[in-house]
């Protein structure tokens, strides 16, 4: 930081102007249609103003006209990389409102699916992170491993990304007979692949120089800006909903909330890699112990929530995802609000990246792991 400050001061003396560059909406590193209005002084980023809304699809408004099972299928389209967590959030919210207790089998399967989604999401994040920094090969290694998870999803849920596997009161189907074997095979293989990730990128001296001590976010800022997920935990913000307000089978498993206080890009990177190990650990505890039982509770044909307000928080791959449902007793909700993790995370970008170079801005944005439909909804 001190170096960059000096640069700014010295350019003041020569009297130079800042110039504005539009990064996006069509830009390779914004991963979608995000526009960053960046004011630059030479290579140094002075201020970033994010402009969102290019794929705002009005999901909250649409939800007011449809029933609860239908809402679940819409949540797939928000954060498509953690579709299952979003599904689960709505399903849990409806179940809590109706005070339905789902069987243990459902909880176990949901948790396994959550962690598989998290793995898939982090794998994609890893390969995109490498690509943003110019190491294009990581992209294919990440996708190669993610393919196995998507195959598992496809076999059990019937779709690869927009899984729509949850219903209020349980699951859409029971797990496929091959599910357990496939998951175990995948974990066995992925455990040999994950160290390769480290060798290829984590240890690499060029990579380390690009991310070490870049994009600091203090604990105070992380809380104030609501930066959650691995990005927030990198700053020491203990915000894992799985720990603090456990849902599904998370109370029954042992896992660690990975925390670090340094808050730079590398820590955010490392925490995600560690979270992958943690996810593997969680799945391994559950996969052999899925209890017998029904995969869904019998629900009424038309689900009506009692009057009132309901909020459900889950930990999606990017951070805390929340569903706020206001019901007036009809089969459609009165108001639905989705608290998306990316929305809060994005707006802390200026805090992190101002004063760094353009290349660092790209790296910092990668470590935030933004998904644009999640921000725009």
């Amino acid at each position: 930081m001190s170096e960059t400050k000096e640069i700014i001061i010295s350019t003041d003396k020569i009297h130079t102007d800042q110039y504005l560059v539009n990064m996006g909406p069509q830009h390779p590193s914004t991963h979608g249609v995000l526009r960053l209005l960046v004011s630059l002084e030479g290579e140094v980023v002075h201020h970033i103003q994010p402009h969102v809304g290019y794929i705002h699809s009005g999901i909250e408004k649409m939800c007011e006209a449809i029933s609860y099972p239908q809402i679940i299928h819409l949540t797939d389209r928000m954060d498509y990389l953690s579709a299952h967590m979003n599904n689960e959030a709505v399903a849990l919210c409806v179940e809590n409102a109706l005070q339905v207790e789902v069987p243990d089998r459902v909880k176990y399967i949901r948790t396994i699916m959550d962690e598989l989604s998290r793995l898939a999401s982090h794998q994609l994040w890893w390969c995109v992170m490498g690509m943003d920094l110019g190491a294009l090969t990581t992209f294919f290694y990440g996708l190669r491993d993610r393919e196995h998870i998507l195959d598992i999803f496809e076999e059990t849920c019937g779709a690869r990304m927009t899984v729509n596997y949850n219903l209020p009161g349980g699951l859409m189907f029971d797990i496929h007979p091959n599910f357990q074997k496939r998951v175990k095979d995948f974990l066995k293989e992925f455990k040999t692949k994950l160290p390769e990730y480290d060798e290829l990128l984590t240890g690499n001296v060029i990579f380390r120089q690009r991310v070490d001590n870049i994009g600091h976010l203090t604990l105070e800022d992380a809380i104030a800006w609501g930066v959650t997920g691995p990005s927030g935990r990198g700053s020491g913000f203990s915000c894992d909903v799985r720990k603090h307000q456990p849902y599904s089978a998370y109370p029954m498993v042992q896992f660690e909330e990975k925390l670090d206080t340094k808050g730079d890009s590398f820590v955010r990177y490392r925490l995600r890699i560690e979270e992958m190990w943690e996810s593997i650990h969680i799945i391994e505890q559950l996969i052999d112990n899925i209890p017998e039982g029904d995969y869904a509770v019998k629900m009424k044909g038309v689900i009506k929530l009692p009057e009132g307000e309901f909020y459900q928080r889950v930990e999606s791959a990017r951070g805390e995802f929340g569903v706020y449902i206001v019901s007036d007793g009809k089969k459609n909700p009165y108001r639905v609000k989705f608290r998306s993790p990316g929305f809060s995370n994005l707006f802390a970008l200026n805090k992190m990246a101002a004063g760094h170079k353009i290349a660092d801005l790209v790296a910092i944005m990668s470590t935030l792991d933004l998904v644009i439909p999640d921000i725009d909804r």
Partner: protein
Amino acid sequence: MGFNIYDFTGMTHNMHVSFMEHMSPLMTTIVEWTIIGVCYLLFIALFGLFLVYAERKVCAMFQQRMGPMRVGYWGLLQTIADFIKLLMKELITPKGVDKFLYNLAPFIIMIATFMAMAVLPFAKGLQTLDFDIGVFYVTAVSSIGVIGILIAGWSSNNKYSLIGAMRSGAQILSYELSVSLSLVTMIILAGSMQLSVIVEGQRDAWFIFKGHVPALIAFVIFLIAGTAETNRGPFDLAEAESELTAGFHTEYSGIKFAFFFLAEYINMFIVAAMAVTVFLGGWMPLHFGSLESFNHVMDFIPPLVWFFLKVGGVIFLIMWFKWTFPRLRVDQILTLEWKYLLPINLVNILLMSLVVLTKFHL
């Protein structure tokens, strides 16, 4: 010596004599220039296309993919199809560009590439210009290319292009130093700047073996700096796809883009060819001092094959760099040059001088 059958000196000399018999000296010069020009043009076009294909296949292999498979057997005609597509594309000139410079830039880059090609010895006698300052000429000419990049970036009237061009300017200015100094190290060993003499000097053993550790260090530095000078990953800051979309050639389309694209690959070839000529014995076969029969077998392989095999090896190494490493940041790229490569290089020159003074290399 089984060597002489592969000597092109006689052939070119005979051609020259027969032209002189039938034509006036002026006409001869014109005809010879035309032939050479056409040869180079064909070579650049075909070899450039092949390099693009090779790059795509190599990168696919690194990434556990197959690469182009559709057009022709194993996608061999893919790049030709791409080239035809580029030829037929509309040439878009954006609003507000400096038209003259905008159109000039691709040609400057192409011309610089052509000029550097002129001194490369492909085989004995197969060399257009044999300057006595050949190495110096190559380093001088290869830095003309950056003018093309700067002009392209500036005239495009695009902020991304300008940033890319400025990065490229800073980068090539610094790395020119390392390239020259690592070549100087080898010139101390070779005792000449003439490329044919340098190659001849490696008849018994390549310079990289002859020069012991200093030559190896110089080779590594030359590879790094050469990669940087061709704007290839991990030094592709000027293009930096994820930061600047395409850097200095963002606004170019069609055949003008193809010029930049081709020039990048031909520059890569030039760097590899220089590395081969100066460090790896040029078109000389691999010889080990005492293994007579082995040396004879090696002699039977034509020098052109040797040359292109070695060039291919070096190009593969450069591609390997690109498809493994992340990109450096602009200040890090300068740190690498000024804080690491330059001091190491200077020490290395000293070491090499010591080696040469003590006649250790013989």
